[in-house]
């Protein structure tokens, strides 16, 4: 958001407008500037587009993988009826990339273009729809809304429209929820929306940049047991004693109560230092989060701000503490904690954390939450031991939650963004046919509520479109690029009136942006660059430039604008057009520091992009594995086994110990260092879905060990989070083995 620094509202409007004007004109070929800033900005823009597209892809893939996760166990146990196998297979076929396509005819394209333009630019319709749909319908609606309709996650107009929609749903929720305690908690459309929102690019980058390192360093300490539940500590303790000594002393009976365990001195001695460590770790998390206030995505902060102002309005007597609880109910509960508790699903770590670190992370999440909420130690009395952490940090946490809310609103820029969008001819939405049809049918289903007024634009469009088409089979679903435009052409003149912008202001904006462009294109050693700027000289220098028609045109236009503004008495030649001049100078200063910022941001986003691409690779691999497996099972149950057996044997492929170690396939090796160079492995697939891994020692004919593996065994192990595959001499990592097999033995259909 642009800063205002105490200038008058009128000026501030101009200020933000110019920024927009710049971004708008950057799209116009002949106005394009080629300085370093422009190049850096372009790289950043491209990167953002890629992140937006990729995070949508991942979101969809994750759903597919989750769906299969839930069904693969049945399949492995051979307990899935053939019918369901077919259903699963259909679900998967061509799940990968949807082909490009178009609507059956131009008329449809145009009408849907009108409809989606309306939905995008007037968020109230979708906001209303979100309250009407069932919880079963809301997930796919939100997917379309967050990743498609407002899918350009870094574009201010779409982001702001999305937030406007949020606000409308939030306000309704506040008005219709009797107790504030359940406001953001119960599974309402709002809470779903918030969760989905945090999965957009900016939220994901924040988590990656701010939390990944902390979490990873914790996870590396696989054996660090920080359990503080006395009962569990006691049980682990006596199990250990029993293992070490073969028996238990009479003083340590089995099956004690929680109170008895808590009173045991040995238990207390174990817990004491753990409390200190937990507090230390939780402190470091909190400090990181607080220090990164400025990294927190604008949208997330703005939602916090809405929660604060809506709560204040609804409960005027509420204490600051109550309000902080509500803000924390979003920020910690919906955004930070899920990532801490299940870091893998947020791409923050590679594997599922081991048992001890997992528990530590859960405890940390509880501690952070207790900061925001009034904890009731009645539930887990041992948590009370961590109270000092709450006392020490309560104040700074509340201050932080309030600081989160300190962001500017965007309404003003939004109006102007919309204005810009309308004047652009090339608004487009990339969307799939099924997304369009699903949205259409939801609108149709709820049209009685949504389009009460017969003459409303929405109703007119729905009437024109007629009944919503059914969902297409996955194969026929197509990705289309839908041109968006309003059915009701609003002339820019009317809009200026509606937006409360005068013709003078339009000229002023244009003048400012033209001068800035000229300044950016002129060589920096030119005399006209000296401050204070003399605008006529600048215009003149551009207009008389040799061999640069574009600059000449800009120079002439700049002169025209100066005299028009002079006539309108907006600026005055007598004071060297100081009003305009000061703003141009200020803008240039702002742009100067902008370049650093742009480069900085690009670096961060690069990292994010790499992560989500890796994650995409992982998801695609997982999907492939499941698919091949499914094909296998099906062709077997269709009785084609004999035919399949004619399949040629694949392999053997040879891998050295070193290779597999490097790829992480070998996660532990008992082979002495000096022998490793002599060890190698052969991977063979005699049949689809069957593998033989053998371990060899150089120079010996016979393998030391041979292991028959079935793909379904591996999948089952993975499903149960069993990551070790024991080969006596070495331990393989199950997911990595799967990835390797996937790469090496991919047969056309089935392995």
């Amino acid at each position, binding site marked *: 958001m642009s800063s205002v620094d105490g200038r008058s509202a009128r000026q501030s409007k101009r200020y933000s407008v110019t920024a927009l004007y710049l971004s708008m004109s950057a799209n116009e070929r002949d106005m394009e500037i080629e300085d370093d800033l422009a190049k850096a900005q372009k790289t950043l823009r491209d990167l953002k587009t890629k992140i937006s597209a990729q995070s949508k892809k991942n979101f969809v893939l994750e759903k597919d993988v*989750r769906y299969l996760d839930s069904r693969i166990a049945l399949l492995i146990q051979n307990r899935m009826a053939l019918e369901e196998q077919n259903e699963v297979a259909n679900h998967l076929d061509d799940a990968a990339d949807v082909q490009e396509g178009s609507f059956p005819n131009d008329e449809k394209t145009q009408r849907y273009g009108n409809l989606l333009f309306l939905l995008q630019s007037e968020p109230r319709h979708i906001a209303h729809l979100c309250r009407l749909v069932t*919880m079963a319908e809301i997930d796919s609606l939100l997917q379309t809304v967050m990743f498609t309709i407002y899918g350009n996650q870094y574009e201010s107009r779409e982001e702001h429209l999305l937030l406007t929609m949020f606000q409308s749903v939030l306000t309704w929720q506040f008005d219709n929820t009797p107790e504030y305690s359940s406001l953001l*908690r119960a*599974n309402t459309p709002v809470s779903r929306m918030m969760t989905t929102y945090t999965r957009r690019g900016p939220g994901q980058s924040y988590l990656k940049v701010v939390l990944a390192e902390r979490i990873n360093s914790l996870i590396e300490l696989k054996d660090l047991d920080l359990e503080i539940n006395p009962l569990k500590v006691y049980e682990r303790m006596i199990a250990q004693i029993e293992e070490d000594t073969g028996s238990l002393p009479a003083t340590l009976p*089995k*099956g004690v109560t929680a109170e008895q365990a808590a009173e045991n001195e040995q238990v207390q001695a174990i817990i004491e230092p753990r409390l200190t460590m937990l507090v230390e770790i939780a402190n470091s998390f909190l400090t990181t989060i607080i220090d990164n206030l400025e990294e927190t995505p604008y949208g997330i902060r703005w939602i916090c701000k809405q929660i604060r102002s809506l709560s204040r309005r609804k409960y005027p007597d509420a204490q600051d503490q109550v309000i902080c609880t509500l803000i924390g109910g979003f920020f910690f509960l919906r955004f930070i904690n899920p990532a801490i508790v299940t870091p893998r699903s947020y791409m923050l770590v590679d594997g599922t954390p081991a048992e001890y670190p997992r528990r530590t992370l859960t405890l940390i999440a509880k501690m952070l939450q207790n900061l925001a*909420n009034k904890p009731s130690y009645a539930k887990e009395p041992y948590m009370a031991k961590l109270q000092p952490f709450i006392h020490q940090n309560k104040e700074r946490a509340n201050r932080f939650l309030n600081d989160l809310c300190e962001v500017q609103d965007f309404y003003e820029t939004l109006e102007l963004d919309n204005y810009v969008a309308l004047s652009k001819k090339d608004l487009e939405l990339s969307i799939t046919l099924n997304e369009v049809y699903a949205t259409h049918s939801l609108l149709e289903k709820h049209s009685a509520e949504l389009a009460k007024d017969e003459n409303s634009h929405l109703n007119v469009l729905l009437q024109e479109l007629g009944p919503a088409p059914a969902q297409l089979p996955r194969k026929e679903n197509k990705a289309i690029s839908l041109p968006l435009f309003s059915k009701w052409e609003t002339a820019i003149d009317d809009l200026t009136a509606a937006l409360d912008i005068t013709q003078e202001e339009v000229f002023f904006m244009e003048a400012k942006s033209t001068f800035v462009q000229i300044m950016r294109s002129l060589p920096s050693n030119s005399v006209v660059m000296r401050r204070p700027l003399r605008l006529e000289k600048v215009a003149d220098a551009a207009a008389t430039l040799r061999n640069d028609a574009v600059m000449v045109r800009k120079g002439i236009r700049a002169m025209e604008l100066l005299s028009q503004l002079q006539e309108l008495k907006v600026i005055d030649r007598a004071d060297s057009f100081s009003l305009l001049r000061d703003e141009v100078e200020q803008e240039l200063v702002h742009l100067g520091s902008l370049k650093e910022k742009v480069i900085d941001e690009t670096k961060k986003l690069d990292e994010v992009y790499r992560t989500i691409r890796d994650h995409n690779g992982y998801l695609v691999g997982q999907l492939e594995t499941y698919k091949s497996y499914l094909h296998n099972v099906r062709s077997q149950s269709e009785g084609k086994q004999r035919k399949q057996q004619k399949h040629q044997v694949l392999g053997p492929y040879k891998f050295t110990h070193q290779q597999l170690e490097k790829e992480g396939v070998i996660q532990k090796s008992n082979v002495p260092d000096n022998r490793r160079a002599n060890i190698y492995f052969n991977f063979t697939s005699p049949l689809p879905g069957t593998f033989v891994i053998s371990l060899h020692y150089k120079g010996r004919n016979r393998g030391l060990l041979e*292991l028959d593996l079935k793909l379904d065994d591996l999948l089952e192990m993975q499903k149960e989070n069993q990551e070790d595959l024991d080969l006596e001499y070495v331990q393989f990592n199950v997911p990595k083995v799967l990835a390797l097999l996937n790469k090496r033995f991919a047969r056309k259909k089935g392995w």
Partner: protein
Amino acid sequence: MRQRREYHIVVLGAGGVGKSCLTAQFVQNVWIESYDPTIEDSYRKQIEVDVRAICLDLTLQEQSNLPRCGQGFLLVFSITSLSSLNELAELREQIIRIRDDENVPLVIVGNKSDLEEDRAVTRARAFSVSQHWGNAPYYETSARRRANVDEVFVDLCRQIIRKDITAAQAGEQEAYSRRRERPIRHGRRRRREKQRCNIL
């Protein structure tokens, strides 16, 4: 001496319906007024001399993993929220899938029965859900008034114990016939059939 038994009970349902309050009432006899959303809590309670219930009070982060070790499930909704009832359907499906058992012990609980004036789910509606779900028992409870709290847990424990006994008798045979259905695998490394439970 009889073997000590432990049963794993999982309490599930939408946010804010009162799962933690119910569990706290059952285990500790306390009423909690304030709302402290759960991340993941576990409790134990001695039911009989040698039977303990381990209660896992969860909240679902989106569709995070259900624990595979649960032997019985309390599916809780609030009678003041229809959508909280609707959400149970998906949960039940997941449970059946994970346990791989249509008749997994479960009890449907309509909590906050003290808020009669805010009732949004009629008894008839809840009963019809129960009928559709193989006549799973339905109770209305109030954690606030401690009404029907012990009953739901006891009912669930009874179901689990009954199942445990039948399973012990039929167990061997079942396991055998199940294995035969599976494709023949040579050189397969059998792992323990027992489900691992990381959470408890």
